[in-house]
C-alpha cells in the first residue's frame, strides 16, 4: 500500500439524506397538488408553474454567477420556491407577472439575505405578497373548471373565503366534499386539500417535516373559528383558502421556522391565531400568507426562548 491515506475528523460516515434529496422529496410531495391544480383549474396552471420555476432557478444562477459565488441551483431549493410561488397565484396570472414574482423571491428575499437558509421570511410567500400589492386584480381573479365541466374554462369561481367575507358578489358556499377534493376557486396549488394531505403524508413518512407545525396550525384555526362561529363552520375554514398548502408546505420551511419542537408549536399556534384574526376581522378574506410572513419574523426570538435544555443542567438557560 503505497498511496496516502486520507485523514479527517470523525464521523467518517454520513446519512444519505442531504439538502438536495430533501428538496427532491418536497417536489415529489408537491406533485399531487400541482396535478390537481392543472386538472381542476386548467392546464394553463402548468405554464404558470414552468414560468415561476424557470424565473427562480435562472435568477438564482445569474445572481450567483454575477456575485462570483458557487452556483447551487442543483440543490433544488430554487425549484421548490418556484413551485410554491406558482401554487400561490391564480392560474390566470399574466406570465410576466409570475416571472417578476420569481425574481423578487429569489434575489430580494433569498439572496439579499445570504442565500439558502439565511432568508428571514419565506421567499415564495414574500413574492406573492409583493404581487398582491402590485397587481391586486390579477392576483384575485378566480376561475375554475369544475369536475363536471373540464372543458369549460373561465367560469367565475369566487373563493369560499371571499364569499364568507362578503367581498365577492353573492355566491353559494361550496360543500365540504367539493372543498376537500378542490372543486372550488383559488390559487393553483391550494384548492385540493386531498392532494395536499397526500403530499404532507409523504413528507411525514420521509421525516422531512414533523407533524407539529401543520397539526397545531390547522387545529388552532379550527378551534378559533369554531369559537368565533363564522357561517361556514370550522371544517370549511380549514379546507379552504391557503391553509392546507400554507401549514404543510410553507410554514414548515426550515429556514423560516423554529428549529426546536417547542418552538415549532409556539410558531404554529401563532400562525393559526393570526390567520383566524385576519380572516374574521381583517380587511382581506384570507390571511395564511401574511400570518406566516408575520410569524417568520418571530422565529429568532422563539428560537432563543426555546433553546433545548442541556443534559444534566438543572435549569433551562434561555
Amino acid at each position: 500500500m503505497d498511496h496516502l491515506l486520507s485523514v479527517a475528523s470523525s464521523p467518517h460516515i454520513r446519512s444519505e439524506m442531504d439538502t438536495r434529496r430533501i428538496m427532491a422529496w418536497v417536489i415529489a410531495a408537491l406533485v399531487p397538488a400541482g396535478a390537481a391544480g392543472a386538472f381542476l383549474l386548467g392546464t394553463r396552471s402548468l405554464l404558470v408553474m414552468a414560468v415561476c420555476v424557470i424565473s427562480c432557478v435562472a435568477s438564482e444562477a445569474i445572481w450567483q454567477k454575477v456575485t462570483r459565488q458557487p452556483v447551487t441551483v442543483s440543490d433544488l431549493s430554487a425549484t421548490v420556491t418556484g413551485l410554491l410561488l406558482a401554487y400561490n397565484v391564480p392560474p390566470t396570472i399574466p406570465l410576466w407577472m409570475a416571472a417578476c414574482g420569481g425574481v423578487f423571491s429569489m434575489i430580494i428575499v433569498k439572496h439579499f439575505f445570504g442565500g439558502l437558509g439565511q432568508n428571514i421570511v419565506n421567499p415564495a410567500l414574500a413574492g406573492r405578497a409583493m404581487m398582491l400589492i402590485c397587481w391586486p386584480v390579477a392576483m384575485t381573479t378566480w376561475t375554475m373548471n369544475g369536475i363536471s365541466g373540464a372543458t369549460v374554462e373561465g367560469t367565475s369561481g369566487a373563493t369560499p373565503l371571499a364569499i364568507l367575507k362578503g367581498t365577492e358578489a353573492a355566491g353559494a358556499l361550496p360543500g365540504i366534499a367539493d372543498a376537500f377534493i378542490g372543486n372550488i376557486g383559488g390559487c393553483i396549488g391550494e384548492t385540493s386539500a386531498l392532494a395536499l394531505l397526500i403530499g404532507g403524508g409523504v413528507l411525514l413518512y420521509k421525516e422531512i417535516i414533523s407533524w407539529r407545525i401543520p397539526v397545531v396550525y390547522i387545529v388552532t384555526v379550527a378551534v378559533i373559528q369554531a369559537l368565533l362561529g363564522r357561517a361556514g363552520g370550522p371544517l370549511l375554514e380549514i379546507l379552504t383558502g391557503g391553509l392546507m398548502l400554507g401549514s404543510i408546505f410553507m410554514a414548515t420551511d426550515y429556514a423560516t421556522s423554529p428549529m426546536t419542537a417547542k418552538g415549532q408549536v409556539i410558531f404554529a399556534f401563532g400562525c393559526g391565531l393570526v390567520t383566524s384574526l385576519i380572516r374574521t376581522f381583517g380587511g382581506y378574506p384570507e390571511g395564511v400568507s401574511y400570518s406566516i410572513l408575520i410569524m417568520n419574523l418571530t422565529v429568532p426570538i422563539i428560537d432563543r426562548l426555546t433553546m433545548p435544555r442541556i443534559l444534566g443542567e438543572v435549569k433551562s438557560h434561555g
Partner: protein
Amino acid sequence: MSLPTFKGGIHPSDSKALTSEKGIEILRPSGEFVYPMSQHIGAPCSPTVKKGDRVLVGQKIGDAEAFVSAPILASVSGKVKDIATRMTISGAIEQCVIVEGDGEFENGTTLVPHDDFRSLAPKECIGIVREAGIVGAGGATFPTHVKLSPPPDKRIRWIIVNGAECEPFLNCDNRLMLEHPEPVIGGLEICMHIFPEASGIIAVERNKPEAIARLEAELSGRGSKASVMPHAVKYPQGAEKMLIYTVTGQEIPPGALPAEVGCLVMNVRTLYHIWQAITNGVPVTERIVSVTGDVIAEPKNIQAPLGTSVRTMIDAAGGFTEDPAKVLAGGPMMGISMRSIDVPIVKGTSGILALSAASARKFTETNCIRCGRCITACPMGLQPSLLDRVVRLREYAEFEASGGMNCIECGCCSYICPARRHITQACRDGKAGVMAARRKSA
C-alpha cells in the same frame, strides 16, 4: 413495549454482519512490538527497562508515579531493541519501548492467581487492577483503579456494564460476551465486592440477542444478583452519560463524573481484565480487535498482543481487496483516521476499520438550512448548528456560553446534517479554542 433509551441519537446502518459471526481468532505474531508509554488518560509512563534487556510477557516495561496513570506491560518475550519516539495509532509521536519478540511468549508476570476474590480486601483488589495495567477498554482508556477509587463521600449504587457496543462495524465486545461470559460476570462480581451496596446491571443493545442470552444463562447459573438490561438500538447508546440516563434515569451534571450520581460504568472488556488479573493472575497484554471494513478481504475478530502493528493485523485478515481511502482506529462514528498503518495497537484499540473511497466519501459543506436535525439528534441537548456558527466566527466565549464544552463528540450532528457541515469538527475546534483561552488567562 419500547425499550429504555436516551433522548436524541441516530440510527446509522450498523454494518456489524461483517464480523458478528466470526469467532475470536488468536494471533501470536513474531517480529517487532511497539509499546507507547501513554496508552491511557493521565500521566505518561517512563520506561522501566533499557535497551538490550530481555523482557517477559506481563513484565512491567513502563510505569509512572502519578495516581492517574497505568503501567505498560510487555505482551511478548524478547529483547528491548530500542527506546525511541514513534508514531502511535492516534497520529501523535510518543516515546515507545520497542521489543523484538522471540516467539516464545514466556510468562513473567508478578501477578498471582486468587481462587476466591472475596478473601481480598477492596484495596487489595484495586491494587492488583493497577498492577495489571487495566484501563477502560471501551476506548476512553481511563485508568480503572482510579475509577474504582471514587471520593469516599460518593456512594456507588449502580455498576453499569457497558455492553452496548453502539459503534457500527465493531463486534469485539459482542464476541467477548458470547465467548467469555463468565469472566465478564466474574469481573462484575469483583466490582460488586468492592462496592457492596451497588447493584450490577449489564446493558446490552437488543441487536445482540445471543450475547444477552449467554449472559442471562451465566447469571442464573451463578445465582448472581446482577441483571441484564436489553435496551434500544441507537447510537450513541454506549456513551457513558447516555447509558446512565437509560439505566437509572439520572443526568450527570456538566463536568461531573458518574460517581456524582452513584454510578460506575465499566466496559465488558474491562471487567474481563479485572477477573483475569485477580482470579487468574493474567495482566493486560492482549486485546480483541475487530478488523473489518469493505476493503478487508476476510473481516474477523482477532485477539492479538498489544504492540502488534496494524499492518500485521490487516495481513492476518487477508489484507486489502483494494486500496483503502481511510483506515480508522475504532468505529466510523468516533474512530481516528490513521496516517500510517505501521503503528501498534494499544489498550484502547477496539477496531481497525478500512473503508473504500465510496464508503469514506469526502463531503463539501453547504449552507445550514436550519432543518433542526442536529438539535434533535444531539444526545447532550446542545444546539450544534449554533455552536458550528460561533466557532466559524471564532467566538469561543459564545461557544462556551452556549454549552459547547458539554459536547461528547459523538458525531451525531455531522452524521445527520443534510448540508454536510462538519459540525463535530467545529465543536472540537471550539473546545480547543476555549481550553487555549483558559490556559492563556490562567
